[in-house]
């Protein structure tokens, strides 16, 4: 085996401006990719590490030389992730992505806490959590005796701390866990995670935060946050899809969700994916090292985008807080266009070479009105006309210009289409009126 062979230097951080010039084969060069919150381009350094590691054989759990080499790769990545995020290496539990980490946090903490005290049945989550947190919580309510407490949010999508305070005052002994995301994936609102921790900690209530969208965009320090568990994901920060981690304090009462070979201190069984983990480690280190520079870059583009949309599209409503470093992710812009349907807008923009998202989940391909917007008090009809534009390190002023060129006509057209397909309740009556 080649464990002693020096590797190419993927960990040497590249300047993001070099990366910007890289042409990404998966996205047509002519298209403006404004959906970084869905997934980001794989960073060249992460890709290099990933491909390099794919040619090596070795199960990190094996004791022979090949296994030891793979183990070393994984542990170096663990140290890299921990160092970038203010955690200890032993606190990093690698998973197959953010959804798995969220499931482990919600289910694992619930079972762990309830085992110690059966009164702890309440799962307290914000109403604007990602489905990877909400759905496990609701599943636990249906199948494992949990009780869901949804914390309301204000019109900007910020969680209501008074509601959390009241919940804790009344039910501190019955709360299994609190989960409040670091930053919202749809409207980019930064949540008051520190205040949440301050409220929960005196009662020994563990707090989890889904930080999938936050890492690389805003400062994230696990130790300083006081969190008990935190979710991160590879492909949202320049790493590969299918790898992530739950960063969890050693004393967090986590019951395993996946059982098997006992990897990851017994909390998460399954053969460690050394290539993905190595690339993940590279991507986390890179994105955190370059965070400040990139955040300024994307925030400037985002501000131009927001100003341009407001100027050119009558009736466009920015959702979430007014852009500011302390309130909103730098790369996020989110609008509703009342009267237009999100899927019409997506089609029209896509055919004009602009790739965006409605930001909310689909059911069999049908965009559903976003639970985030509804929780923020946006009327359901308006919520159907939502679009999220999310910028990343590779975004350029041309991307924004392209959007601003295409958007006014797209909105106008989508509004006309919205009128065309609006329910016509008179149709039946007029036809059978003579016979009924």
């Amino acid at each position, binding site marked *: 085996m080649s464990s002693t062979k020096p590797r190419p230097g993927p960990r040497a951080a590249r300047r993001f401006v070099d990366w910007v010039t890289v042409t990404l084969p998966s996205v047509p060069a002519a298209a403006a990719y404004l959906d970084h919150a869905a997934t980001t381009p794989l960073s060249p350094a992460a890709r290099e590490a990933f491909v390099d590691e794919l040619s090596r054989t070795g199960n990190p759990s094996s004791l022979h030389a090949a296994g030891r080499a793979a183990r070393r790769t994984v542990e170096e990545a663990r140290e890299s992730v921990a160092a970038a995020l203010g955690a200890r290496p032993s606190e990093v539990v690698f998973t197959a992505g953010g959804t798995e980490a969220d499931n482990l946090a919600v289910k694992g903490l619930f079972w762990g806490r309830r085992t110690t005290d059966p009164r702890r049945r309440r799962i307290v989550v914000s109403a604007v959590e990602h489905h990877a947190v909400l759905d496990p919580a609701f599943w636990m309510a249906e199948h494992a005796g949990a009780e869901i407490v949804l914390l309301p949010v204000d019109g900007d999508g910020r969680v209501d701390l008074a509601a959390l305070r009241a919940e804790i005052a009344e039910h501190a002994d019955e709360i299994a866990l609190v989960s409040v995301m670091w930053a919202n994936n749809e409207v980019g609102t930064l949540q008051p995670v520190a205040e949440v921790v301050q409220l929960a900690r005196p009662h020994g209530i563990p707090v989890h935060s889904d930080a999938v969208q936050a890492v690389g965009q805003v400062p994230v320090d696990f130790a300083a946050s006081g969190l008990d568990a935190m979710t991160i994901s590879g492909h949202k920060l320049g790493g590969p899809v299918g790898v992530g981690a739950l960063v969890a304090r050693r004393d967090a009462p986590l019951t395993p969700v996946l059982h098997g070979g006992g990897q990851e201190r017994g909390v998460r069984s399954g053969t460690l994916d050394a290539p993905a983990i190595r690339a993940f480690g590279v991507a986390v280190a890179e994105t955190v090292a370059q965070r400040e520079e990139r955040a300024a870059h994307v925030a400037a583009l985002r501000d131009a985008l927001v100003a341009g949309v407001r100027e050119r599209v009558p009736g466009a409503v920015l959702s979430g807080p007014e852009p500011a470093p302390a309130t909103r992710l730098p790369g996020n812009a989110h609008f509703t266009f009342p009267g237009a349907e999100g*899927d*019409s807008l*997506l*089609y*029209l923009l*896509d*055919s004009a070479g602009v790739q965006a998202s409605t930001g909310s989940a*689909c*059911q*069999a*391909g*049908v*965009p559903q009105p976003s639970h985030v917007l509804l929780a923020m008090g946006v009327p359901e009809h308006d919520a159907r006309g939502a679009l999220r534009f999310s910028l990343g390190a590779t975004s350029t002023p041309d991307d924004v210009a392209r959007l601003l060129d295409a958007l006014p006509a797209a909105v106008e*057209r*989508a509004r*006309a*289409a919205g*009128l*065309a*397909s609006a*329910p*016509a*309740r008179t*149709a*039946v009556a*007029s*036809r*059978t*009126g*003579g*016979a*009924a």
Partner: protein
Amino acid sequence: MRVLAAMSGGVDSAVAAALAVDAGHEVVGVHMALSRNRDQFRTGSRGCCSIEDAGDARRAADVLGIPYYVWDLSERFEDTVVADFLAEYEAGRTPNPCVRCNEHIKFEALLDKATALGFDAVATGHYARVVTRDVPDPSAPGGTRPVRELHRSPNTAKDQSYVLAVMGPERLARAIFPLGGFASKDEVRAEAARRGLSVSAKPDSYDICFVADGDTQGFLRERLGARPGEIVDAEGAVLGEHDGAYAFTVGQRKGLRIDRPAPDGRPRYVLDVQPARNRVVVGPAELLSVDRVEAGAAVWFDGARPAPGAWVDAEVQVRAHGAPVPARVRAVEGAPEGPAQGMEIALTGAPLRGVAAGQSVVVYDGTRVLGQATVDRAYRAAAAPTATGAG
């Protein structure tokens, strides 16, 4: 042209989309989501409305390399097709929901939205042909103008001109049926297989898509509730009871639950459904025979409308897979502010049996569709009206 291909997830619409691509159009695939709670719709391989079908449509679009979207038309579908289905049965009539879906969903909601979004036409996997013919143009002496005609498919077993006729000329101008030239379903399946479309062997769908398990009576009972009433003969003698007159259709023989056989031992059929009295009238088959039909909400295709008052010789068809019968047809003007115009039909050959109000009647000249209307009343000219609608 920019063409929106309506893709149900079945083989026909997949091949239709493929042919539209071959023809050089810029094609986008759209699957219509027609139910809010899609679990309630039929699942399995026979549908056009289940999540599997949406996945099949997506896969076909991927193979064709065209964009694919799902449009949520469920509210419109409930408000038009399902509401019409319930209202018509409740009124003692017999609706055809596939006709209403073509009328209100495919060639109205979908077509209008597509037009608004910049599409030139909607392509579907229906078996029918569009023929464009030049006819003399009265407004330009000596000149001609093109007329777009709807014709039967050469695949007579699959011909769907009957359920398409309701769209009328304005809609036909923006519709294309790429399968119009196919002589059999096997050819379409072979075409799908040749193109690597995995839906090539998918079974056909037959049932009403929003009625689970094909149990129409169960669906009506669930949505309309039980309303017990009497089953009577033509003289008004009570022969049995029913749970809701709405569940019966003129011409129906099975499921009458009459304990007494007819005196002559012959089978009895539903002759009339009378919702106002919540009665179902039954009698012998010969009382079902009709030779006159009055129909409302008529549409005529371009150049096909008879001159005012004139009877024209044609053929009419009253069921999706029924045989056309010879008839004379004339247009009837509606009141200026009242319901739409209608048509009067006098059968010139053998009478028809069991023509129910609410059924769609389509008028043909050979393979060409002249017009369509919805039956209001069917009767025997020689005798007093027997089979009537709700009146």
